[in-house]
């Protein structure tokens, strides 16, 4: 009986605690009809642009790709996600989410050292899309590139992660920036601070009721599994509203990692967004005090750290997949079989690894030695048959390959990449771990040689 009462109380308190990302208007002197102050349609439009861009890369139409990367034109259809049997989507065009939005202008404008030629993230996105249009359905077997994966994974970092972590949750939270006692722009129904926080949340890509969902449910919503439609359709209107009921990008990856490893990245980030937004709502349209701003920055730091970990966890997982692919290739080669499929899988996983690794350096955060380590260990391309790897660009912008060692030796680099990621970003899930749990032991051993102790 006692147990029953306790479990009912726990369930009740949990449901009472769970919050949807929806807050009333607090802007003083607001005379309009809006009830909710939450608005992040522009960010969801960019998620739809990214999803759609990923779909059309394999078509090889450069003009079409640019429509979703850098154009702001009206009338663009949403190519993904679209309605399917048992999973109806409310919106069919980008304009229904927000008008005049593009991906490229929001991308990181700093240098990316992990790609030959040291381009900015904006230049690199343009370069990758152009290369994709010249490849066969986004696949370049000569240099070992899967442009669908490279463009998709890097866009998530260079646009969503960068804008949220580097811009809204950092620069825009400073005193004097987007104050809470004034509308974000003239005529807006939300305050400056409210909108800054909402835009960061929008880039994360979680459903508004994310705290009520399990990581597995979030994953299945992104996959548009009809069995989870009722979970997705939070307001029960028979359609999934992309603005508040769909999971995109890193929110999906956070939930996916949690679902596989039992970690808590998705809810950690979600809870910090909710707590931060509640703090802003509690200010009731008044300018935040320095104490409130300090607390808000604390939530922002929690989000930034966990978000970075999610990207590093994804890179860790794909480094493990690359290692496994190389083992499979060795086995097939020994048996003198056909390695085409295994090589294709290797290139795909490498593209995912590289895309996530480049994302880590696309948000203006100082990674110290880790950045150089990741760049060198992963290289500019996977190691190809014969031990060749892309090492530079020539004067015409074509890739130059050089012999760097065998494909099998490249496995050692993947072990080092996993160790580096696990230690540098304090990873918890470590999916596809090929190190046998090395980072745990390394953490236990004190750095030798700090002091010359005799016996």
């Amino acid at each position, binding site marked *: 009986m006692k147990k029953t009462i306790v479990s009912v109380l726990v369930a009740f308190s949990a449901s009472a605690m769970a919050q949807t990302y929806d807050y009333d208007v607090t802007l003083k002197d607001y005379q309009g009809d809006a009830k909710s102050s939450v608005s992040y349609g522009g960010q969801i439009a960019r998620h739809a642009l990214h999803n759609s861009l990923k779909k059309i890369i394999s078509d090889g139409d450069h003009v079409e790709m640019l429509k979703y990367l850098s154009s702001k034109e009206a009338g663009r259809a949403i190519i993904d996600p679209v309605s399917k049997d048992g999973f109806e989507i409310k919106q069919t065009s980008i304009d229904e989410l927000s008008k005049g939005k593009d991906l490229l202008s929001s991308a990181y404008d700093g240098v990316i050292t992990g790609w030959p030629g040291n381009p900015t993230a904006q230049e690199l996105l343009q370069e990758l899309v152009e290369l994709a249009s010249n490849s066969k359905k986004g696949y370049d077997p000569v240099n070992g590139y899967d442009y669908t994966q490279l463009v998709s994974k890097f866009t998530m970092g260079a646009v969503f992660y960068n804008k949220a972590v580097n811009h809204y949750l950092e620069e825009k939270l400073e005193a004097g920036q987007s104050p809470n006692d004034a509308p974000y722009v003239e005529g807006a129904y939300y305050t400056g601070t409210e909108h800054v926080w909402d835009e960061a949340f929008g880039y994360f890509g979680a459903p508004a009721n994310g705290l009520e969902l399990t990581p597995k449910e979030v994953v299945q919503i992104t996959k548009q599994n009809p069995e989870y439609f009722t979970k997705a359709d939070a307001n029960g209107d028979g359609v999934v509203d992309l603005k508040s009921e769909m999971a995109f990008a890193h929110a999906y990856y956070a939930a996916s990692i949690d679902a596989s490893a039992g970690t808590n990245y998705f809810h950690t980030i979600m809870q910090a967004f909710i707590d931060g937004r509640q703090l802003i709502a509690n200010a009731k349209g008044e300018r935040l005090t320095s104490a409130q701003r300090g607390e808000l920055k604390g939530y922002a730091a929690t989000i930034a750290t966990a978000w970075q970990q999610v990207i590093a966890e994804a890179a860790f997982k794909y480094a493990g997949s690359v290692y496994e692919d190389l083992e499979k290739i060795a086995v097939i080669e020994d048996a003198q079989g056909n390695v085409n499929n295994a090589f294709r899988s290797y290139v795909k996983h490498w593209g995912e690894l590289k895309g996530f690794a480049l994302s880590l350096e696309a948000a203006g955060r100082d990674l110290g030695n880790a950045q150089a380590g990741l760049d060198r260990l992963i290289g500019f391309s996977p190691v190809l048959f014969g031990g060749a790897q892309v090492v530079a660009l020539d004067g015409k912008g074509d890739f130059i390959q050089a012999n760097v060692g065998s494909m099998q030796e490249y496995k050692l680099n993947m*072990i080092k990449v996993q160790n580096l990621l696990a230690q540098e970003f304090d990873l918890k899930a470590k999916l596809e771990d090929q*190190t046998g749990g090395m980072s745990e032991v390394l953490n236990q051993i004190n750095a*030798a040689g700090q002091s010359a102790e005799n016996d």
Partner: protein
Amino acid sequence: MFDHFVGWLGNELVAASSSLLDKSKRVSLWYLLSALLFAWGVLAIRYGHDGWSRLQPYLSWRVWWHRSARTDYLLWFANRLALAVLIPKTLTQAVWISWLYFYWQEAGIGDAQLGWPTSIVIVVFTLCYFFVDDFSRFFVHWCMHKSPWLWAFHQVHHSAKVLTPFTVFRTHPVEGLLFFLRSMTSQSLVISVFLVVFPNQVSLWQIYGVLVTTFLFNALGANLRHSGVALSYGQRIEKWFISPAQHQVHHSNLNQHYDRNFGVALAIWDRMFGSWEPGHDNQMIRFGTNQAIDNMGMLGQWCQPFKDIYELFQARLKRVRIWLVSLQKKTPHTMALWKAPQTGKSVLKQDK
């Protein structure tokens, strides 16, 4: 530039001082206190009220502020700064372990699939880690005494005329570098093998975040090794574990005590190498090398080894020359053909 240097200096000094509260360091206040309590308990049982008086060397400010002890403190800080520069930054344990782990797998060693519970793997791994680490310490220490080239540096540690727990830091930076390489090599070897054979089960058995064997070693009076408190475990135990009294014998300036008791925690290595010597609560030992270095300050401790290395080199060179001369006398025809390239004169004649 200067600001950065001062900042770095400050950080290093603070980090060194933090050892006093770090439970993984032998000189932490916890272990300094636990050593005192341990010794007091044992000596009180053996000698009653007289037991306390035997602890006086551990508590005397004359010992702690002796010139030799002050040199220990200076070396502690100075070595930390020197090693921050000397220790290679890229040759990390992670790099070594990764390479060895990969190498074993490529050599065909894989998951043993013994089905052992993780707790058993942790205990076996911890014991192996301890044994290999302890033996490697013993062996490097043994080499330090047997090779005159290495002794030139190790004599710094033995030049202490009084022993305090901080004498553990009385080391030449070159020896500190060798310790770093020893620790990296031995640990990498054990860890990499276990990771391959027992993937995802390997972990060290720790207490308060410290390796269980290190914790026990330190908690049970490791600091007494470098102190004037003669505490023997009795011969039965001393055959297995090195007592403080045994290590003090190692620091003795008497000829009959030279090259005895190289071990750190275990005494079995000394028994295997024939260097085991029992200790005694009533032993009266003077510490030092009986050489000029015993009275030198920090700079002398740093420089004297290089002077000795130079003299050793000169002496060896002389021996080679004598050997060549003797060889020339035996085979004058052959040696006459050995000409110096520029002068055309015989090198041996030049030397004369």
